[in-house]
């Protein structure tokens, strides 16, 4: 549609508030998806969870067996904290013998940054790239844990975009 020429309104004249509005333009489908879709476009499950009372040893064994870098520490459906490989490196490695039978809640990262399941991918990417968090828990509107997004899931989503178009 050709753009109408713009002119400043006369004093007192009605001005369409949207007359200066240019709809956003996206370079391609991937860009449009990351900016306008819901975070649900990524795979956000399964979630590896553990209760706060579990021992650090149990948590590490679980991470090793499942091949995951991070566990969500949950009481019922509510997120209490996150226990990740980085917590092992920073807080457990030097004193493993002393800490192995302590509860994971003592060394987990409490009050992690989360996003809601209504958020856009851009919000989760912000937490990852700017906040530096590798794993972002996803909560429902009633604050229950419903998913987790990590870099591997973001990368496989991007890869899928390439596969789809080259197939």
């Amino acid at each position, binding site marked *: 549609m050709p753009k109408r020429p713009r002119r400043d309104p006369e004093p007192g004249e009605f001005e369409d508030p949207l007359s200066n509005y240019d709809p956003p333009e996206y*370079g391609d489908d*991937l860009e449009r998806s*990351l900016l306008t879709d819901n975070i649900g476009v990524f795979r956000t499950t399964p979630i590896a969870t553990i209760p706060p009372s579990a021992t650090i040893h149990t948590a*590490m064994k679980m991470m*090793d067996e499942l091949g995951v870098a991070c566990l969500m520490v949950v009481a019922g459906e509510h997120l209490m904290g996150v226990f990740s490989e980085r917590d092992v490196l920073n807080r457990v490695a030097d004193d493993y013998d002393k800490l192995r039978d302590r509860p994971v809640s003592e060394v987990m990262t409490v009050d992690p940054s989360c996003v809601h399941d209504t958020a856009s991918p851009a919000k989760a*990417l912000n937490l*990852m*790239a700017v906040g530096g968090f590798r794993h972002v828990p996803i909560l429902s509107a009633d604050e229950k844990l419903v998913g987790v997004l990590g870099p591997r899931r973001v*990368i496989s989503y991007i890869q899928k975009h*390439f596969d789809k178009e080259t197939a």
Partner: protein
Amino acid sequence: MGLRQDILREPVSELVLRELIALKPGDTVRRAVAKMREKKLGCVVVVDADGRPLGKFTERLLIKLLLAGPQRLEEPVASHMAAVWGTIKLTDPIAKAIRVMQDKSLRFLIVLESDGRAVGLTGQRGLMEYIADHFPRAVKGQTMDSKLYMDQREGA
């Protein structure tokens, strides 16, 4: 230009590179752990006398090692490293880095100069930052809290 085109076209040198922590095969695992913690990086690379990579030691391997017995922290890192790693050239397109990481399930890639010398590391984090930089307004303008609603009505 769209993100997809940029990923296909732009070279790995556009990604944020991290400093490569190089250790000698005889260094202890404990030293590797201290270095990783100091540099806030999940991976060290074990190199030979000429600087060629022999293997890598990661946070994941650290968990395996602790489970097997923490006294192993005093053993040489070479006996606990993984001999698989991914490399990518500075001039390769970012799309290739994504594919290598995805195909080999890797978190880090060693970035090489055209003469084969390792110049740094990149990986998942570098890629997340690249995407964020691509949408400065949309991604970086987000708030980092997780509130669904404002505490007060706007303007109230």
